[in-house]
């Protein structure tokens, strides 16, 4: 997708690994999603999914260390809205986790693990790769036409 000629980067920023950054990230995702043509409900859900992914990077990949940063990028190509998060923390592959059965989840009164579930519910495609330089890339894609 990144090699397509109509691939456009809408936003790119290095984000400190602090939870107070989450609101800012949500605002950007929501604004860009609306601008791309998603309805308000979908834009809100996209902001939620990206919040969950960023929270996982801050809490799990970097273990809550607030002195690090990760790269946050929004790009578009044809009907695809793509959010890419690149970190150099601990590898945390949300694709490797089994799908949650919410009936069992509630029966067991569990807590946590919902973020990855939300990402899968909201996004059309989720792709996770770890490069040889130890950077992890999480790419989340939502198509405009599949709304």
């Amino acid at each position, binding site marked *: 997708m990144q090699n397509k000629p109509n691939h456009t980067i809408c936003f790119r920023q290095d984000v400190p690994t602090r*939870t*107070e950054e*989450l*609101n800012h990230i*949500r605002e950007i995702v929501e604004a860009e999603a609306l601008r791309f043509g998603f309805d308000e*409900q979908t834009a*809100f*859900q996209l902001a*939620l999914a990206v*919040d*969950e992914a960023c*929270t996982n990077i*801050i*809490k799990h990949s970097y273990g809550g260390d607030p002195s690090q940063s990760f790269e946050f990028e929004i790009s578009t190509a044809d009907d695809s809205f793509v959010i890419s998060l690149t970190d150099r923390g601990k590898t945390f592959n949300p694709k490797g986790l089994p799908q949650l059965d*919410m*009936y069992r989840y*509630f029966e067991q*009164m*569990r*807590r*946590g693990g*919902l*973020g990855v*579930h*939300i990402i899968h*519910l*909201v996004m059309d495609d989720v792709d996770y790769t770890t490069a040889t330089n130890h950077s992890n890339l999480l790419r989340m894609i939502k198509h405009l036409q599949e709304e």
Partner: protein
Amino acid sequence: MSQFTVAIRDNHPAQVVDLNGYLDAHTAPQLEQTLQRLVSDQNYNIIVNFRDLTYISSAGLGVFMAFIEDVRGNQGDIKLAGMSPKVYNVFDLLGFPMLYEIYDDEQQARQRFIERNEAIG
């Protein structure tokens, strides 16, 4: 601009937790402390008023999961009220209406506590 505030208010027979702003991984610890204080003081009839809450992520949902078993084990409940459609959508997305009673407003939730108390006698 205040990101998130949480306050406790008495509305007999329940304690009302008023939420304002957004509830995410940054602000969820404040709600957790508030609910912990209520439960530590043996207040088990809890209404969470979402009227002024604009956003919730799974970090916020997780706080309710942390206390529901303890509260119900003490014959109480955490009832949720006054959600905007966007906030309700997050609960609904994950199936939380299976586990929690969700009301249009605080008074409906309070009425259920009153009816329950009358039934028990």
